[in-house]
Protein backbone atom coordinates (compact mmCIF):
# COMPACT_ATOMS: atom_id res chain seq x y z
CA UNK A 1 0.00 0.00 0.00
CA UNK A 2 2.82 2.38 0.88
CA UNK A 3 4.80 1.80 -2.29
CA UNK A 4 1.68 2.44 -4.35
CA UNK A 5 1.34 5.84 -2.71
CA UNK A 6 4.83 6.98 -3.37
CA UNK A 7 5.07 6.11 -7.05
CA UNK A 8 2.91 8.84 -8.48
CA UNK A 9 3.38 10.33 -11.87
CA UNK A 10 1.09 12.55 -13.93
CA UNK A 11 -2.05 14.04 -12.43
CA UNK A 12 -5.51 13.82 -13.94
CA UNK A 13 -6.99 16.90 -15.56
CA UNK A 14 -7.63 19.43 -12.82
CA UNK A 15 -8.42 23.11 -13.34
CA UNK A 16 -7.85 24.80 -10.02
CA UNK A 17 -9.25 28.18 -11.11
CA UNK A 18 -12.55 26.58 -12.08
CA UNK A 19 -12.84 24.56 -8.84
CA UNK A 20 -11.73 27.42 -6.56
CA UNK A 21 -14.44 29.61 -8.09
CA UNK A 22 -17.06 26.91 -7.48
CA UNK A 23 -15.86 26.73 -3.86
CA UNK A 24 -15.92 30.56 -3.53
CA UNK A 25 -12.32 30.49 -2.41
CA UNK A 26 -9.88 33.11 -3.60
CA UNK A 27 -6.37 31.66 -3.89
CA UNK A 28 -2.96 33.29 -4.37
CA UNK A 29 -0.83 32.17 -7.31
CA UNK A 30 1.49 30.37 -4.87
CA UNK A 31 -1.46 28.48 -3.38
CA UNK A 32 -2.73 27.57 -6.85
CA UNK A 33 0.62 26.15 -7.84
CA UNK A 34 1.12 24.27 -4.57
CA UNK A 35 -2.42 22.90 -4.23
CA UNK A 36 -2.50 21.83 -7.89
CA UNK A 37 0.63 19.79 -7.37
CA UNK A 38 -0.45 18.31 -4.03
CA UNK A 39 -4.02 17.58 -5.12
CA UNK A 40 -2.73 16.18 -8.40
CA UNK A 41 -0.84 13.60 -6.35
CA UNK A 42 -3.93 12.83 -4.28
CA UNK A 43 -6.18 12.59 -7.35
CA UNK A 44 -3.72 10.33 -9.07
CA UNK A 45 -3.90 8.07 -6.04
CA UNK A 46 -7.68 8.19 -5.96
CA UNK A 47 -7.76 7.00 -9.58
CA UNK A 48 -7.03 3.54 -8.16
CA UNK A 49 -10.69 3.29 -7.22
CA UNK A 50 -11.55 2.98 -10.91
CA UNK A 51 -10.09 -0.53 -10.75
CA UNK A 52 -12.58 -1.75 -8.15
CA UNK A 53 -15.47 -3.71 -9.66
CA UNK A 54 -18.65 -2.03 -8.40
CA UNK A 55 -21.04 -3.65 -10.89
CA UNK A 56 -24.44 -4.02 -9.24
CA UNK A 57 -23.25 -2.53 -5.93
CA UNK A 58 -25.62 -0.09 -4.22
CA UNK A 59 -24.05 3.15 -2.92
CA UNK A 60 -23.85 3.72 0.85
CA UNK A 61 -24.58 7.28 1.98
CA UNK A 62 -24.75 6.36 5.66
CA UNK A 63 -23.46 3.27 7.40
CA UNK A 64 -26.94 2.69 8.81
CA UNK A 65 -30.26 3.43 7.12
CA UNK A 66 -31.30 7.01 7.84
CA UNK A 67 -34.95 7.92 7.67
CA UNK A 68 -36.52 11.31 7.52
CA UNK A 69 -37.44 12.56 10.95
CA UNK A 70 -40.66 14.52 11.12
CA UNK A 71 -41.42 17.01 13.86
CA UNK A 72 -44.73 18.62 14.67
CA UNK A 73 -45.02 22.10 13.18
CA UNK A 74 -45.26 23.86 16.52
CA UNK A 75 -43.38 26.98 17.56
CA UNK A 76 -40.89 26.56 20.37
CA UNK A 77 -38.32 28.85 21.95
CA UNK A 78 -35.24 29.51 19.81
CA UNK A 79 -32.30 31.89 19.92
CA UNK A 80 -33.07 35.41 21.09
CA UNK A 81 -32.34 38.25 18.68
CA UNK A 82 -29.33 39.18 20.79
CA UNK A 83 -27.99 35.61 20.69
CA UNK A 84 -28.62 35.29 16.96
CA UNK A 85 -26.67 38.51 16.34
CA UNK A 86 -23.95 37.65 18.87
CA UNK A 87 -21.46 36.63 16.20
CA UNK A 88 -22.54 38.83 13.30
CA UNK A 89 -19.55 40.56 11.69
CA UNK A 90 -21.63 43.71 11.16
CA UNK A 91 -25.11 44.63 12.32
CA UNK A 92 -27.57 47.48 12.29
CA UNK A 93 -31.08 47.80 13.78
CA UNK A 94 -31.30 44.13 14.81
CA UNK A 95 -30.22 42.96 11.37
CA UNK A 96 -26.99 41.64 9.88
CA UNK A 97 -25.56 44.20 7.46
CA UNK A 98 -23.95 43.19 4.17
CA UNK A 99 -22.71 45.16 1.15
CA UNK A 100 -25.30 46.14 -1.45
CA UNK A 101 -26.25 43.06 -3.49
CA UNK A 102 -28.52 44.64 -6.15
CA UNK A 103 -27.86 48.04 -7.69
Amino acid sequence: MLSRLFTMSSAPEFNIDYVANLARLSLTSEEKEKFSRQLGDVLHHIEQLAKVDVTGVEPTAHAFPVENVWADDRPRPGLTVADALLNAPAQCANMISVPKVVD
Partner: protein
Amino acid sequence: MSSDIFYQTISSLAAQLAAKKLTSVELMQAVIARTKAVDDRVRAFNSYDEGDALVQAAASDARRAASQSRGPLDGIPIGLKDVIAVAGQPLTASSKMLANFVSPYDATVTRKLKEQAGAVVWGRLNCDEFAMGSSNENSAFRPVSNPWDLTRVPGGSSGGSAAALAAGEAIATLGSDTGGSIRQPAALCGIVGMKPTYGLISRYGLIAFASSLDQIGPFARTVEDAALVLGAIAGHDPLDSTSFNAPVPDYRRELAVKKGPWKIGIPKEYFAEGLDPEVGAAVEAAIAHYKKQGCEIKDVSLPNTQSCLDTYYIIATAEASSNLARYDGIRYGHRSKAATDAIDIYAKSRAEGFGAEVKRRIILGTYVLSTGYYDAYYLRAQKVRTLIRQDFLNAYQEVDVLLTPTSPIPAFKLGEKSDPLALYLCDIYTIGVNLAGLPAMSVPCGFTKSGLPLGLQLIGQPFQEANLMAIAQSYEQAHEWGCRHPSL
Protein backbone atom coordinates in the same frame (compact mmCIF):
# COMPACT_ATOMS: atom_id res chain seq x y z
CA MET B 1 -1.97 4.48 40.37
CA SER B 2 -0.31 7.83 40.81
CA SER B 3 -0.84 9.70 44.06
CA ASP B 4 -1.16 12.97 42.14
CA ILE B 5 -4.82 13.84 42.23
CA PHE B 6 -4.83 15.04 38.60
CA TYR B 7 -3.62 11.62 37.38
CA GLN B 8 -6.32 9.60 39.10
CA THR B 9 -9.25 7.85 37.45
CA ILE B 10 -12.88 8.91 37.52
CA SER B 11 -13.85 5.80 39.45
CA SER B 12 -11.23 6.48 42.14
CA LEU B 13 -12.07 10.19 42.41
CA ALA B 14 -15.82 9.49 42.47
CA ALA B 15 -15.31 7.20 45.47
CA GLN B 16 -13.26 9.86 47.29
CA LEU B 17 -15.87 12.52 46.51
CA ALA B 18 -18.68 10.27 47.72
CA ALA B 19 -16.76 9.49 50.93
CA LYS B 20 -16.24 13.26 51.48
CA LYS B 21 -12.45 12.79 51.48
CA LEU B 22 -12.24 15.28 48.64
CA THR B 23 -14.37 18.11 47.26
CA SER B 24 -15.01 18.95 43.64
CA VAL B 25 -13.55 22.39 44.24
CA GLU B 26 -10.30 20.87 45.56
CA LEU B 27 -10.15 18.56 42.56
CA MET B 28 -10.79 21.43 40.15
CA GLN B 29 -8.16 23.56 41.85
CA ALA B 30 -5.62 20.76 41.49
CA VAL B 31 -6.43 20.40 37.78
CA ILE B 32 -6.22 24.18 37.25
CA ALA B 33 -2.84 24.32 39.04
CA ARG B 34 -1.56 21.43 36.93
CA THR B 35 -2.77 23.07 33.74
CA LYS B 36 -1.04 26.32 34.65
CA ALA B 37 2.17 24.42 35.42
CA VAL B 38 2.40 22.45 32.16
CA ASP B 39 0.21 23.92 29.43
CA ASP B 40 2.73 26.47 28.20
CA ARG B 41 4.70 23.40 27.09
CA VAL B 42 1.87 21.04 26.07
CA ARG B 43 -0.38 23.74 24.51
CA ALA B 44 -3.43 21.47 24.80
CA PHE B 45 -5.95 24.24 25.57
CA ASN B 46 -7.26 26.91 23.22
CA SER B 47 -9.03 28.52 26.18
CA TYR B 48 -10.38 27.80 29.62
CA ASP B 49 -12.58 29.66 32.07
CA GLU B 50 -11.18 29.07 35.55
CA GLY B 51 -13.96 31.00 37.33
CA ASP B 52 -16.74 29.18 35.50
CA ALA B 53 -15.14 25.79 36.27
CA LEU B 54 -14.91 26.60 39.98
CA VAL B 55 -18.55 27.73 40.04
CA GLN B 56 -19.57 24.41 38.45
CA ALA B 57 -17.41 22.52 40.98
CA ALA B 58 -18.95 24.40 43.91
CA ALA B 59 -22.42 23.57 42.61
CA SER B 60 -21.42 19.91 42.51
CA ASP B 61 -20.21 20.07 46.12
CA ALA B 62 -23.50 21.66 47.12
CA ARG B 63 -25.45 18.84 45.43
CA ARG B 64 -23.36 16.25 47.23
CA ALA B 65 -23.86 17.99 50.57
CA ALA B 66 -27.63 17.90 49.93
CA SER B 67 -27.44 14.18 48.99
CA GLN B 68 -28.43 15.04 45.42
CA SER B 69 -25.34 13.79 43.61
CA ARG B 70 -25.96 12.97 39.96
CA GLY B 71 -23.62 9.98 39.96
CA PRO B 72 -19.96 9.11 39.38
CA LEU B 73 -19.25 12.02 37.00
CA ASP B 74 -20.65 14.67 39.35
CA GLY B 75 -17.84 17.17 39.95
CA ILE B 76 -15.34 15.52 37.59
CA PRO B 77 -13.51 17.98 35.26
CA ILE B 78 -14.03 16.91 31.64
CA GLY B 79 -12.35 18.85 28.82
CA LEU B 80 -14.01 19.28 25.42
CA LYS B 81 -12.41 19.46 22.00
CA ASP B 82 -12.90 22.95 20.62
CA VAL B 83 -15.46 21.74 18.07
CA ILE B 84 -18.11 20.99 20.71
CA ALA B 85 -20.37 23.91 21.66
CA VAL B 86 -20.53 25.26 25.22
CA ALA B 87 -23.02 28.10 25.70
CA GLY B 88 -21.35 31.44 26.37
CA GLN B 89 -17.83 30.15 25.71
CA PRO B 90 -15.56 30.47 22.65
CA LEU B 91 -15.90 27.83 19.92
CA THR B 92 -13.10 28.11 17.39
CA ALA B 93 -12.43 24.72 15.71
CA SER B 94 -8.81 25.99 15.99
CA SER B 95 -9.54 28.19 12.97
CA LYS B 96 -9.05 31.89 12.30
CA MET B 97 -12.50 31.69 10.73
CA LEU B 98 -14.06 31.28 14.18
CA ALA B 99 -11.36 32.97 16.27
CA ASN B 100 -13.92 35.31 17.87
CA PHE B 101 -16.98 33.06 17.78
CA VAL B 102 -18.92 32.59 21.03
CA SER B 103 -21.38 29.70 21.12
CA PRO B 104 -24.98 30.76 21.81
CA TYR B 105 -25.99 27.23 22.87
CA ASP B 106 -24.80 23.93 24.34
CA ALA B 107 -24.13 20.81 22.26
CA THR B 108 -26.29 17.89 23.39
CA VAL B 109 -23.23 16.13 24.87
CA THR B 110 -22.36 19.31 26.78
CA ARG B 111 -25.88 19.60 28.15
CA LYS B 112 -25.89 15.92 29.17
CA LEU B 113 -22.53 16.20 30.91
CA LYS B 114 -23.55 19.33 32.80
CA GLU B 115 -27.22 18.79 33.55
CA GLN B 116 -27.63 15.01 33.76
CA ALA B 117 -24.19 13.85 34.93
CA GLY B 118 -23.11 16.96 36.87
CA ALA B 119 -19.63 16.95 35.33
CA VAL B 120 -17.55 20.14 35.33
CA VAL B 121 -17.14 21.18 31.69
CA TRP B 122 -13.53 22.28 31.66
CA GLY B 123 -11.91 24.23 28.83
CA ARG B 124 -11.81 23.98 25.08
CA LEU B 125 -9.07 21.79 23.68
CA ASN B 126 -6.80 22.49 20.74
CA CYS B 127 -7.22 20.38 17.59
CA ASP B 128 -6.44 20.38 13.90
CA GLU B 129 -8.39 23.13 12.14
CA PHE B 130 -11.99 21.94 11.65
CA ALA B 131 -10.76 18.51 12.85
CA MET B 132 -8.79 17.98 9.62
CA GLY B 133 -5.43 16.41 10.30
CA SER B 134 -3.49 13.66 12.05
CA SER B 135 -0.83 15.61 13.93
CA ASN B 136 -2.56 18.70 15.39
CA GLU B 137 -0.12 20.82 13.38
CA ASN B 138 -3.05 22.20 11.37
CA SER B 139 -4.28 24.25 14.34
CA ALA B 140 -4.38 27.88 13.20
CA PHE B 141 -3.24 28.95 16.67
CA ARG B 142 -0.37 26.68 17.74
CA PRO B 143 0.58 23.03 17.54
CA VAL B 144 0.06 20.73 20.55
CA SER B 145 3.06 18.82 21.94
CA ASN B 146 3.03 15.18 22.98
CA PRO B 147 3.48 15.10 26.79
CA TRP B 148 5.74 12.04 26.47
CA ASP B 149 8.17 13.92 24.24
CA LEU B 150 7.53 17.61 23.69
CA THR B 151 9.33 17.57 20.34
CA ARG B 152 6.74 15.14 18.96
CA VAL B 153 3.11 15.40 17.83
CA PRO B 154 0.23 14.14 19.98
CA GLY B 155 -1.61 12.87 16.90
CA GLY B 156 -4.78 14.41 15.59
CA SER B 157 -7.16 15.76 15.02
CA SER B 158 -8.18 15.56 18.72
CA GLY B 159 -4.56 16.11 19.80
CA GLY B 160 -5.37 18.59 22.56
CA SER B 161 -7.95 16.21 24.08
CA ALA B 162 -5.39 13.39 24.18
CA ALA B 163 -2.44 15.50 25.36
CA ALA B 164 -4.43 17.27 28.10
CA LEU B 165 -5.51 13.96 29.59
CA ALA B 166 -2.04 12.39 29.32
CA ALA B 167 -0.55 15.48 31.01
CA GLY B 168 -3.03 15.53 33.91
CA GLU B 169 -4.82 18.70 32.74
CA ALA B 170 -8.25 17.01 32.87
CA ILE B 171 -9.70 13.78 34.30
CA ALA B 172 -11.37 12.80 31.02
CA THR B 173 -11.93 14.56 27.71
CA LEU B 174 -14.15 14.39 24.63
CA GLY B 175 -12.95 14.37 21.06
CA SER B 176 -14.49 13.73 17.67
CA ASP B 177 -13.47 10.98 15.25
CA THR B 178 -14.06 11.22 11.49
CA GLY B 179 -11.21 8.99 10.30
CA GLY B 180 -9.30 8.12 13.47
CA SER B 181 -9.17 11.49 15.24
CA ILE B 182 -9.83 9.98 18.69
CA ARG B 183 -8.09 6.61 18.36
CA GLN B 184 -4.81 7.72 16.76
CA PRO B 185 -4.02 10.48 19.32
CA ALA B 186 -5.08 8.13 22.14
CA ALA B 187 -2.50 5.62 20.88
CA LEU B 188 0.22 8.25 20.50
CA CYS B 189 -0.43 9.66 24.00
CA GLY B 190 -0.83 6.36 25.89
CA ILE B 191 -4.50 6.60 26.92
CA VAL B 192 -7.84 4.98 26.09
CA GLY B 193 -9.83 6.52 23.23
CA MET B 194 -13.15 5.39 21.87
CA LYS B 195 -15.10 6.05 18.68
CA PRO B 196 -18.65 4.79 19.25
CA THR B 197 -20.99 3.35 16.63
CA TYR B 198 -22.26 6.02 14.22
CA GLY B 199 -25.54 7.29 15.66
CA LEU B 200 -24.94 6.35 19.30
CA ILE B 201 -24.05 9.91 20.31
CA SER B 202 -25.83 13.06 19.16
CA ARG B 203 -23.84 15.33 16.86
CA TYR B 204 -26.01 18.35 17.70
CA GLY B 205 -23.62 21.18 18.56
CA LEU B 206 -20.59 19.44 17.06
CA ILE B 207 -18.99 21.54 14.31
CA ALA B 208 -19.54 19.40 11.22
CA PHE B 209 -16.63 18.06 9.17
CA ALA B 210 -17.99 14.98 7.35
CA SER B 211 -21.50 14.30 8.60
CA SER B 212 -21.79 10.64 7.62
CA LEU B 213 -18.50 9.83 9.40
CA ASP B 214 -18.23 12.21 12.40
CA GLN B 215 -18.81 10.81 15.86
CA ILE B 216 -18.06 12.23 19.32
CA GLY B 217 -16.32 9.95 21.81
CA PRO B 218 -14.41 9.84 25.11
CA PHE B 219 -10.73 9.83 26.04
CA ALA B 220 -10.12 8.27 29.45
CA ARG B 221 -7.39 6.72 31.61
CA THR B 222 -9.12 3.35 31.82
CA VAL B 223 -11.76 1.42 29.91
CA GLU B 224 -14.03 1.71 32.94
CA ASP B 225 -13.74 5.50 32.90
CA ALA B 226 -14.50 5.50 29.16
CA ALA B 227 -17.60 3.43 29.93
CA LEU B 228 -18.75 5.98 32.49
CA VAL B 229 -18.35 8.91 30.10
CA LEU B 230 -19.89 7.01 27.19
CA GLY B 231 -22.95 6.16 29.26
CA ALA B 232 -23.36 9.83 30.15
CA ILE B 233 -23.26 11.16 26.57
CA ALA B 234 -24.92 8.35 24.57
CA GLY B 235 -28.57 8.16 23.65
CA HIS B 236 -31.23 9.31 21.23
CA ASP B 237 -31.57 13.02 20.51
CA PRO B 238 -34.45 14.47 18.47
CA LEU B 239 -32.08 17.29 17.45
CA ASP B 240 -29.88 14.89 15.44
CA SER B 241 -31.80 13.00 12.76
CA THR B 242 -29.02 10.38 12.52
CA SER B 243 -29.12 9.62 16.23
CA PHE B 244 -30.08 6.03 17.03
CA ASN B 245 -33.23 5.43 19.04
CA ALA B 246 -32.48 2.70 21.57
CA PRO B 247 -32.01 2.55 25.35
CA VAL B 248 -28.47 3.15 26.63
CA PRO B 249 -27.13 0.25 28.72
CA ASP B 250 -25.27 0.76 31.99
CA TYR B 251 -21.90 0.16 30.39
CA ARG B 252 -19.97 -0.13 33.65
CA ARG B 253 -22.34 -2.82 34.92
CA GLU B 254 -22.13 -4.59 31.55
CA LEU B 255 -18.33 -4.63 31.86
CA ALA B 256 -18.57 -6.64 35.06
CA VAL B 257 -20.97 -9.13 33.46
CA LYS B 258 -19.42 -9.81 30.07
CA LYS B 259 -16.77 -12.51 30.21
CA GLY B 260 -14.73 -14.27 27.52
CA PRO B 261 -13.35 -16.21 25.95
CA TRP B 262 -13.98 -14.34 22.72
CA LYS B 263 -13.28 -15.01 19.08
CA ILE B 264 -10.79 -12.41 17.92
CA GLY B 265 -10.15 -11.76 14.24
CA ILE B 266 -6.80 -10.57 12.92
CA PRO B 267 -7.22 -8.85 9.52
CA LYS B 268 -4.06 -9.64 7.59
CA GLU B 269 -4.31 -6.43 5.54
CA TYR B 270 -3.60 -4.41 8.71
CA PHE B 271 -0.21 -6.02 9.27
CA ALA B 272 1.28 -5.08 5.93
CA GLU B 273 4.13 -2.96 4.65
CA GLY B 274 4.60 0.31 6.54
CA LEU B 275 3.94 -1.05 10.02
CA ASP B 276 6.64 0.03 12.47
CA PRO B 277 8.37 -3.09 13.92
CA GLU B 278 7.94 -1.93 17.53
CA VAL B 279 4.22 -1.32 16.98
CA GLY B 280 3.91 -4.71 15.30
CA ALA B 281 5.71 -6.49 18.15
CA ALA B 282 3.52 -4.85 20.82
CA VAL B 283 0.34 -5.81 18.99
CA GLU B 284 1.59 -9.37 18.45
CA ALA B 285 2.23 -9.59 22.20
CA ALA B 286 -1.36 -8.50 22.86
CA ILE B 287 -2.63 -11.20 20.48
CA ALA B 288 -0.52 -13.74 22.37
CA HIS B 289 -2.06 -12.52 25.62
CA TYR B 290 -5.60 -13.09 24.39
CA LYS B 291 -4.63 -16.52 23.07
CA LYS B 292 -3.20 -17.44 26.46
CA GLN B 293 -6.48 -16.37 28.06
CA GLY B 294 -8.28 -18.95 25.95
CA CYS B 295 -9.56 -16.69 23.19
CA GLU B 296 -9.77 -18.13 19.70
CA ILE B 297 -7.52 -16.15 17.37
CA LYS B 298 -8.64 -16.31 13.75
CA ASP B 299 -7.04 -14.85 10.63
CA VAL B 300 -9.60 -12.92 8.61
CA SER B 301 -9.47 -10.85 5.45
CA LEU B 302 -10.92 -7.42 4.69
CA PRO B 303 -10.14 -7.50 0.96
CA ASN B 304 -11.18 -3.91 0.19
CA THR B 305 -8.83 -2.40 2.80
CA GLN B 306 -6.56 -0.93 0.14
CA SER B 307 -9.49 1.15 -1.17
CA CYS B 308 -10.28 2.69 2.23
CA LEU B 309 -7.94 5.67 1.97
CA ASP B 310 -9.20 6.71 -1.48
CA THR B 311 -12.83 6.19 -0.55
CA TYR B 312 -12.39 8.16 2.64
CA TYR B 313 -10.69 11.14 1.02
CA ILE B 314 -13.46 11.39 -1.58
CA ILE B 315 -16.39 11.07 0.84
CA ALA B 316 -14.87 13.10 3.69
CA THR B 317 -13.77 16.00 1.48
CA ALA B 318 -17.05 16.02 -0.46
CA GLU B 319 -19.03 16.29 2.76
CA ALA B 320 -16.58 18.86 4.15
CA SER B 321 -16.85 21.08 1.07
CA SER B 322 -20.61 21.09 1.56
CA ASN B 323 -20.53 21.57 5.35
CA LEU B 324 -17.96 24.35 5.25
CA ALA B 325 -19.93 26.32 2.66
CA ARG B 326 -21.69 27.91 5.63
CA TYR B 327 -18.55 29.91 6.49
CA ASP B 328 -19.17 32.76 4.11
CA GLY B 329 -18.44 35.81 6.26
CA ILE B 330 -22.08 36.90 6.37
CA ARG B 331 -23.83 35.76 9.56
CA TYR B 332 -20.87 34.77 11.72
CA GLY B 333 -17.18 34.04 11.49
CA HIS B 334 -14.43 36.03 9.83
CA ARG B 335 -15.46 38.72 7.31
CA SER B 336 -12.79 40.15 5.04
CA LYS B 337 -12.32 43.89 5.23
CA ALA B 338 -10.84 43.86 1.72
CA ALA B 339 -14.03 42.65 0.04
CA THR B 340 -15.92 44.94 -2.32
CA ASP B 341 -19.17 43.09 -3.05
CA ALA B 342 -21.20 40.11 -1.78
CA ILE B 343 -19.46 37.41 -3.84
CA ASP B 344 -16.12 38.95 -2.97
CA ILE B 345 -16.99 38.69 0.74
CA TYR B 346 -17.39 34.92 0.36
CA ALA B 347 -14.18 34.35 -1.57
CA LYS B 348 -11.94 36.69 0.43
CA SER B 349 -13.35 35.85 3.88
CA ARG B 350 -12.84 32.15 3.17
CA ALA B 351 -9.34 32.81 1.79
CA GLU B 352 -8.36 34.74 4.92
CA GLY B 353 -10.21 32.53 7.43
CA PHE B 354 -9.21 29.01 6.35
CA GLY B 355 -5.77 27.40 6.63
CA ALA B 356 -4.01 25.38 3.93
CA GLU B 357 -5.32 21.90 4.79
CA VAL B 358 -8.92 23.09 5.01
CA LYS B 359 -8.57 24.83 1.63
CA ARG B 360 -7.05 21.72 0.07
CA ARG B 361 -9.93 19.56 1.31
CA ILE B 362 -12.61 22.04 0.24
CA ILE B 363 -11.12 22.15 -3.25
CA LEU B 364 -10.79 18.38 -3.51
CA GLY B 365 -14.34 17.92 -2.21
CA THR B 366 -15.75 20.51 -4.58
CA TYR B 367 -13.95 18.85 -7.48
CA VAL B 368 -15.20 15.31 -6.78
CA LEU B 369 -18.77 16.63 -6.55
CA SER B 370 -18.56 18.83 -9.65
CA THR B 371 -20.45 18.19 -12.89
CA GLY B 372 -18.81 15.49 -14.94
CA TYR B 373 -16.85 14.01 -12.04
CA TYR B 374 -19.59 13.11 -9.56
CA ASP B 375 -20.20 9.59 -10.91
CA ALA B 376 -16.52 8.80 -11.34
CA TYR B 377 -15.51 9.88 -7.86
CA TYR B 378 -18.28 10.43 -5.33
CA LEU B 379 -20.82 7.86 -6.49
CA ARG B 380 -18.12 5.27 -7.06
CA ALA B 381 -16.68 5.94 -3.60
CA GLN B 382 -20.11 5.40 -2.06
CA LYS B 383 -20.34 2.04 -3.83
CA VAL B 384 -16.88 1.02 -2.65
CA ARG B 385 -17.99 2.08 0.82
CA THR B 386 -20.69 -0.59 0.59
CA LEU B 387 -18.01 -3.20 -0.19
CA ILE B 388 -15.81 -2.01 2.68
CA ARG B 389 -18.70 -2.22 5.12
CA GLN B 390 -19.63 -5.66 3.80
CA ASP B 391 -16.06 -6.87 4.44
CA PHE B 392 -16.43 -6.04 8.13
CA LEU B 393 -19.89 -7.59 8.41
CA ASN B 394 -18.62 -10.76 6.73
CA ALA B 395 -15.76 -10.95 9.24
CA TYR B 396 -18.25 -10.68 12.10
CA GLN B 397 -19.91 -13.88 10.90
CA GLU B 398 -16.83 -15.62 12.29
CA VAL B 399 -15.47 -13.43 15.11
CA ASP B 400 -16.64 -11.13 17.92
CA VAL B 401 -14.09 -8.40 17.45
CA LEU B 402 -11.16 -7.42 15.24
CA LEU B 403 -7.72 -6.58 16.63
CA THR B 404 -5.26 -4.34 14.77
CA PRO B 405 -2.63 -1.69 15.45
CA THR B 406 -4.22 1.76 15.93
CA SER B 407 -1.49 3.70 14.15
CA PRO B 408 1.23 2.25 11.91
CA ILE B 409 3.84 4.37 13.71
CA PRO B 410 4.46 5.90 17.16
CA ALA B 411 4.42 9.70 17.66
CA PHE B 412 6.55 11.43 15.03
CA LYS B 413 8.48 14.70 15.28
CA LEU B 414 6.70 18.02 14.91
CA GLY B 415 7.34 19.19 11.34
CA GLU B 416 8.47 15.75 10.19
CA LYS B 417 5.60 15.11 7.78
CA SER B 418 5.00 18.10 5.53
CA ASP B 419 3.48 16.23 2.58
CA PRO B 420 -0.33 15.85 2.89
CA LEU B 421 -0.30 12.30 1.52
CA ALA B 422 2.31 11.17 4.06
CA LEU B 423 0.04 12.45 6.82
CA TYR B 424 -3.07 10.83 5.32
CA LEU B 425 -1.25 7.49 5.66
CA CYS B 426 -1.31 7.82 9.46
CA ASP B 427 -5.02 6.98 9.25
CA ILE B 428 -4.83 3.77 7.23
CA TYR B 429 -5.86 1.52 10.13
CA THR B 430 -8.61 3.75 11.45
CA ILE B 431 -10.60 5.10 8.48
CA GLY B 432 -12.30 1.83 7.50
CA VAL B 433 -14.12 1.88 10.85
CA ASN B 434 -15.69 5.28 10.10
CA LEU B 435 -16.71 4.26 6.59
CA ALA B 436 -18.43 1.19 8.06
CA GLY B 437 -19.89 3.15 11.02
CA LEU B 438 -18.47 0.70 13.57
CA PRO B 439 -17.40 1.22 17.20
CA ALA B 440 -13.67 0.93 17.89
CA MET B 441 -11.23 1.86 20.60
CA SER B 442 -7.54 2.30 21.15
CA VAL B 443 -6.03 0.83 24.31
CA PRO B 444 -2.41 1.34 25.49
CA CYS B 445 -0.29 -1.74 24.64
CA GLY B 446 3.26 -0.80 25.55
CA PHE B 447 6.06 1.62 24.85
CA THR B 448 8.87 1.89 22.34
CA LYS B 449 12.45 1.51 23.56
CA SER B 450 12.67 5.29 23.57
CA GLY B 451 9.59 5.55 25.81
CA LEU B 452 6.81 6.49 23.36
CA PRO B 453 3.36 4.98 24.01
CA LEU B 454 1.79 2.44 21.66
CA GLY B 455 -1.84 1.51 21.12
CA LEU B 456 -3.84 -1.43 19.87
CA GLN B 457 -7.19 -1.05 18.17
CA LEU B 458 -10.22 -3.24 18.85
CA ILE B 459 -13.07 -2.95 16.34
CA GLY B 460 -16.50 -4.10 17.46
CA GLN B 461 -19.88 -4.85 15.96
CA PRO B 462 -22.48 -2.10 15.55
CA PHE B 463 -23.91 -0.96 18.92
CA GLN B 464 -21.96 -3.68 20.78
CA GLU B 465 -19.90 -1.16 22.78
CA ALA B 466 -20.28 -3.12 26.01
CA ASN B 467 -18.77 -6.23 24.46
CA LEU B 468 -15.99 -4.20 22.87
CA MET B 469 -15.10 -2.53 26.16
CA ALA B 470 -15.18 -5.83 28.06
CA ILE B 471 -12.69 -7.32 25.60
CA ALA B 472 -10.50 -4.21 25.93
CA GLN B 473 -10.70 -4.29 29.72
CA SER B 474 -9.64 -7.94 29.95
CA TYR B 475 -6.37 -6.92 28.27
CA GLU B 476 -6.01 -3.66 30.17
CA GLN B 477 -6.39 -5.26 33.60
CA ALA B 478 -3.62 -7.76 32.91
CA HIS B 479 -1.20 -4.96 32.04
CA GLU B 480 -0.22 -1.69 33.63
CA TRP B 481 0.64 0.43 30.62
CA GLY B 482 -1.94 3.07 31.52
CA CYS B 483 -0.49 3.56 35.01
CA ARG B 484 2.63 5.25 33.66
CA HIS B 485 2.68 9.00 33.26
CA PRO B 486 4.98 11.33 31.36
CA SER B 487 7.54 13.34 33.33
CA LEU B 488 6.67 16.97 32.78
